[in-house]
């Protein structure tokens, strides 16, 4: 029964998206993302339980350079910090803490090694694992990459944490240099296998670009657009988490459909 209501919702979302596509460009919210890109079928049970029982969420973002922004106050504008703010706003009464553990030039395999320590130090309810970019850049064997991601997710789940996987950024300038497709597929396959949600940053940012919300081709030293993109990413990620954890939020009473 539940499955079929999910199908109904999916059809509704697609229908809404198709209708809104007709009226494209009239959307006021620069962060707007169609629901089918945000909401999946996998649940975040631990997040659900802890938000209800302890009124507390400890979230860790494990990622590479694309999870932070350069500059002295870059961290406060990057999506982990924006996520913390978005969740705090949308889940009144729940204490949300997002810790970003980012290191440059780390392959998925290297990140897996840090997971044990992470679980021990942070005891997270949820680990948001952003990976794939550096592997794509280095040309890791996609199959090896998939195996590493699967191993990491397994470790995190065994350690009691919920997991959300975050894939690559959409980067039009480097599209013919870095082939990210195989790595995005690998992440999707692990997510299917281990039943964890994927935050499809690639498709979401591409949607923003296609819709004219952000000009991601632009060459600039200015941080302004990067900050806005990260703010939107943080909010979109919050929507994904609230939906997957089946939480009630302030806007609209229940998770957005």
């Amino acid at each position: 029964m539940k499955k079929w209501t999910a199908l109904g919702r999916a059809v509704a979302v697609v229908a809404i998206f198709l209708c809104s596509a007709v009226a494209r460009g009239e959307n006021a919210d620069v962060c707007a993302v169609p629901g089918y890109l945000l909401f999946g079928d996998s649940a975040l049970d631990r997040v659900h339980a802890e938000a209800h029982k302890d009124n507390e969420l400890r979230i860790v973002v494990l990622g590479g350079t694309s999870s932070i922004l350069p500059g002295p106050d870059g961290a406060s504008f990057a999506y982990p910090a924006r996520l913390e703010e978005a969740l705090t706003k949308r889940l009144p009464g729940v204490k949300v803490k997002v810790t970003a553990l980012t290191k440059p030039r780390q392959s998925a395999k290297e990140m897996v090694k840090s997971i044990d320590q992470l679980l021990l130090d942070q005891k997270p309810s949820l680990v948001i694992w952003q990976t794939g970019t550096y592997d794509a850049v280095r040309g890791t064997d996609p199959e090896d990459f998939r195996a590493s991601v699967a191993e990491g997710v397994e470790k995190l789940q065994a350690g009691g944490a919920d997991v959300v996987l975050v894939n690559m950024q959409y980067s039009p300038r480097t599209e013919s240099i870095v082939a990210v497709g195989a790595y995005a597929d690998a992440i999707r396959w692990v997510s299917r296998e281990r039943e964890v949600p994927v935050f499809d940053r690639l498709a979401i940012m591409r949607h923003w670009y296609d819709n004219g919300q952000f000009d991601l081709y632009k060459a600039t030293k200015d941080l302004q657009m990067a900050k806005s993109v990260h703010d939107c990413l943080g909010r979109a990620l919050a929507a994904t988490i609230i939906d997957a954890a089946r939480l009630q939020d302030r806007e609209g009473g229940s998770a957005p459909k």
Partner: protein
Amino acid sequence: MTSVVQSPVIHAPAVPAAAVAGGRDLRLDLFRGLALWLIFLDHVPNNILAWFTIRNYGFSDATEIFIFISGYTAAFVYGRAMVSRGFIVAGARILRRAWQIYVAHVFLFAIYIAEIAYVASSFENPLYVEEMNALDFLKTPDVTIIQALLLKFKPANMDVLPLYIVLLIMFPAMLWLLLRNATVALSLSVGLYVLAWEFGWNFPSWPNGHWYFNPLAWQLLFVFGAWCALGGATRLAPALRSPIVVWVAIAYLLAAFGVTLTWYFPRIAFLVPHRIGEWMYPIDKTNLDVLRFAHFLALAALTVHFIPRTWPLLQSKWLRPAILCGQHSLEIFCLGVFLAFAAHFVMIELFGGTAMQVFISICGICIMVGTAWVISWYKRMEVRGSGTPKRPPDADLAGGEA
């Protein structure tokens, strides 16, 4: 790129009957031409028209079509040469072809480096610090260029030609065996495919990893194409006429379409039961997953079933552009890779919106067709200019290239 492409010199038909029956099959040129267009559309970054390409509707994509037909035509063209002129001559011709492709690949690499160097010098955006690591290889040209010449460093979208080179290098021996005992040859090919899967054999890449298209796996498709050309198609014909095969193929294609749909709409992912997903994923492109191979077979079976060799439309002017492209596949493939780079460049410099994507895609295909037409014209002219007509009158149809 090469301007002179060998067409087969056709002598008395001492060839196995199947190999010469009825000149060139225009369906091959048509679908290879279409495959070349689809590969181009897929290679243009973020192309809205890429939604029309078959990879979004099932497991296999245009690469399978291209490699299969290339195997088919290679056997068709060089098979005759091997029968009439012997192993050495045909083998030498095949290797010459491999060399031409190598040269074409290096030429494309030079263009690629030019584009990348430009992007590296002009691009800055704090959002993409991590992606910029991809340009590190420009700092060590000594290593990069040598690795590229060794076919170990292969930039994005430049994986098909190296695969083709290896397939052709393996081909003289395979063709020899195919002409003697096609069943043994095909079994050997299947065996190599199985072993490559079993032991994870593949060629190394630089800076790490393996070839994106594993030649030891993809050879199966190439050899299968060759096998079909040398009599296999005739053997399969009764099966392809059977309605059961048609319905199985249709069912499989629909199932694959359904599965593919769940990739784009995670909400309906539950429609693929967990256990089936576990068995099915990942669908490996590198090693030509069996599901991909089967998907291609289903497509091919339906195509052969519903489009006969004598299909009148094959002679119509509407399909002529695709057929022309298919008949000059190496040149048009390389051109397509170049055009995809050029398209990316235009999108960086001007803008990359939907209108531009459509415009660039249409222009690209027009350029491909125009070039194929010029090459055809040039070849016809050369044949006429050389005085003695070396080829039979239907050279254009029977010839084309491997």
